[in-house]
């Protein structure tokens, strides 16, 4: 054992003089960093603030007696997520272990029997949907209408107390979902417009995409927010909806660029063959070019969803209470004292967990797609 450790370290840490020097410089610093972070996390940090303010972090200022709506929405979203996962990766034992691990991590921060039970229920719904689409072929065929119904019902469930009350992590998730879904058709249209036969359409689409891509998102969201009341006086739209419109307008341009790269990847021969069969341009694009192009761009589009999710805290600029603002609201409460590090590390860790899962899924998808195209 000791000889193995010695071999390993002499190979990986002190293999060459320069490596040895680097190790001597970097190793103590890294160890000290890890030690001080662990020491702080275990014995100094007072984590009780996180479970105590879990409701605010998750749903913001959404009324507490309406929390069942948020749980229902979380269940539906989990089911859709599981179903989508099942279409790509069949459910395996190690997935179950992973899910259980995640659940255990969630349960350690959630307190109270009710919360634990509901969290377990949501995870169970996810696993069931995953199993269903993994092994029941019929489930995959009804997935699209089911997803559509699911999204509609999420909004039907969440809307009644008032759209303006949405907040916390739930707002970030809903914003991401709406933006990702709405920006896809607009982005596809823009991508086709950019290679249209008509130079005017090309010009307009190119101009739109390029201008959007050289502006900061925060500006676009803010401008849409202040322009909507000026454009449509008397028609008051909720801040949340205005934010979603701003995000969609911005991210459509990015989706358009991804889709365009996919369109370029479709060999010319495909279009020419279809044309020689006498198909109309519309039919060629819809049933020959687009399916092949979308297949290529699925991994970058998943990465784009992560970008949207990471950009969601920007809605603070239009006064919405998202995950970050909820955390800042808790910090502003003087009854806890200074818990800056605890709250911000919790925010960063949650985002990191979700973000790395999305990244992992994108990488797996890329490998999966590569197998299919061989």
């Amino acid at each position, binding site marked *: 054992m000791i000889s193995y450790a010695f071999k390993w370290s002499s190979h*990986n*840490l002190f*293999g*060459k003089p*320069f*490596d040895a020097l*680097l*190790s001597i410089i*970097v*190793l103590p610093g*890294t160890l000290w960093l890890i030690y001080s972070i662990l020491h702080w996390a275990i014995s100094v940090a007072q984590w009780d603030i996180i479970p105590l303010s879990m409701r605010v972090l998750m749903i913001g200022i959404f009324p507490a007696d309406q929390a069942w709506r948020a749980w229902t929405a979380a269940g539906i979203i989990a089911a859709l997520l599981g179903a989508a996962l099942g279409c790509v990766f069949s459910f395996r034992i190690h997935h179950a272990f992973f899910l259980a691990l995640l659940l255990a991590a969630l349960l350690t921060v959630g307190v109270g029997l009710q919360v634990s039970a509901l969290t377990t229920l949501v995870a169970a719904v996810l696993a069931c949907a995953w199993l269903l689409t993994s092994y029941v072929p019929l489930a995959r065929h009804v997935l699209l209408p089911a997803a559509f119904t699911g999204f509609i019902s999420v909004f039907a469930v969440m809307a009644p107390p008032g759209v303006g009350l949405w907040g916390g992590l739930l707002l970030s998730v809903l914003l991401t979902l709406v933006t990702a879904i709405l920006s896809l058709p607009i982005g596809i249209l823009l991508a086709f417009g950019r290679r249209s*036969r*008509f*130079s*005017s*359409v090309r010009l*307009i689409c190119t101009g739109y995409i390029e*201008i959007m891509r*050289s*502006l*900061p*998102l*925060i*500006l676009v969201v*803010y*401008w849409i927010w*202040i*322009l909507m*009341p*000026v*454009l*449509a*006086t008397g028609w008051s739209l909720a801040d949340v909806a205005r934010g979603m419109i701003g995000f969609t307008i911005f991210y459509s341009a990015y989706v358009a660029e991804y889709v365009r790269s996919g369109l370029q990847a479709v060999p010319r021969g495909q279009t020419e063959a279809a044309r020689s069969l006498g198909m109309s341009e519309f039919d060629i694009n819809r049933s020959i070019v687009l399916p092949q192009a979308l297949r290529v761009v699925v991994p970058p589009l998943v990465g784009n969803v*992560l970008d949207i*999710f*990471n*950009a*969601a*805290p*920007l809605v*603070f*600029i239009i006064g919405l209470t998202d995950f*970050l603002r909820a955390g*800042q609201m808790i910090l502003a409460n003087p009854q806890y004292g200074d818990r*800056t*590090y605890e709250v*911000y590390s919790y*925010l*960063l860790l949650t*985002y*990191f967990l979700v*973000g*790395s899962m*999305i*990244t992992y899924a994108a990488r797996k998808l890329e490998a999966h797609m590569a197998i299919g195209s061989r």
Partner: protein
Amino acid sequence: MIINETNAAPGSVGCDQVRSRRFRKRLRHDAIQFAIIALVVALIGLLGYAVKEGLAQKGIKFSFAFLSNAAGFDISEGKTFSLSDGIFPAFEAFTSDRSNGAAFIAGIFNTLKVAVLAIILSTVLGTLLGVGRLSTNWVVRNLSFWIVEFVRNTPLLIQLVFWYFAVVLHFPPLAAAAKWYGGVIISQQGLYFPALSWSGDGSGISIALVSATWVAIVGFIVDPVKGMRRVCVVAIVALVGVLFASGFLSINYPVASKFQASGGTSLSPEMAALLLAIVVNSASYIAEIVRGAIDALPKGQWEAAGSLGLSRRNTINDIVLPQVFRVVLPSFGNQYIGLTKNTALGIAIGYPDLFNVYGTVANQTGHSLEGIVIVMVSYLLLSWIISAIVSWANSRLNQMGASR
């Protein structure tokens, strides 16, 4: 049409038919083009009309006259042009009696200040991280990997807020500030660095020396001949030495008293946090670009260098990185544009960049629409300038590679 007329053999069957079909096709194409243009013009007109009506209801008229009105608010940092005295515009700190236009210029100055510093620093840090991810040293490799993964999978805004509220504002107060060798002061009131200070008297000899130095620097950057660039380096070193020796140029160290520091150059806490957040964030993305480019380099390059007996460090410095930089420059350009856009997040911690200044001006005057035009044009210009510089550097680098 002319080609058709000249090439058509007289009496060929169907020539007229083909021509008329082509003509009809073109006519239809033009008609659709025209319809699209008309539709877009109508839409934009409608939009403009609606905005004008909406603004008229609030009693605001679309005009840029507000730019010359006095601003009436203060900006915590930032310099602007003022035309008040003399022919040459003076470059000085913004005060509340300056115009709104000057406020916008101060905002652009602040945005540029952060962007330029962040571009330089993140390129260096990103390259180090990217090379570190491929290091043979296990600790360095994994440390770089986890830093990059963590930063890429968390939102920049939360990182920024973390840097500001949890790091920069937890620096020691100025009275107990850490002071490093060379006079760097790190405190929650700001970061202070030594600066070069000019104490020349405007005499002919000092101006000649300074102009010679600048010529040498410009020559070092743009001269295409390698030998001339070496001469320029020698000249720069000699000239700077003379400037120091003659006392025209001196190093100004910051001095901290109990509540403030004077001398040197300083970064405000907001600027320091924004810079840290953006540099670390972009460096992670740049590291991924660099790593991808190194991975894409043919394995033969490494093997050939190894068989020549070059050490790994020499291989990376002389064989790999020069080739990698040629490939990654366009991606770097995109990253630089993204970085410049990200400076707009400074509003979350109160850094007075262009967006922040625009928000204040729009609130004070109600002219948010005109502000939108100004800000949009500014960001578009910034993006174009960056991509122009990057493509210039790219063409220059590839030219050098080809001629070598």
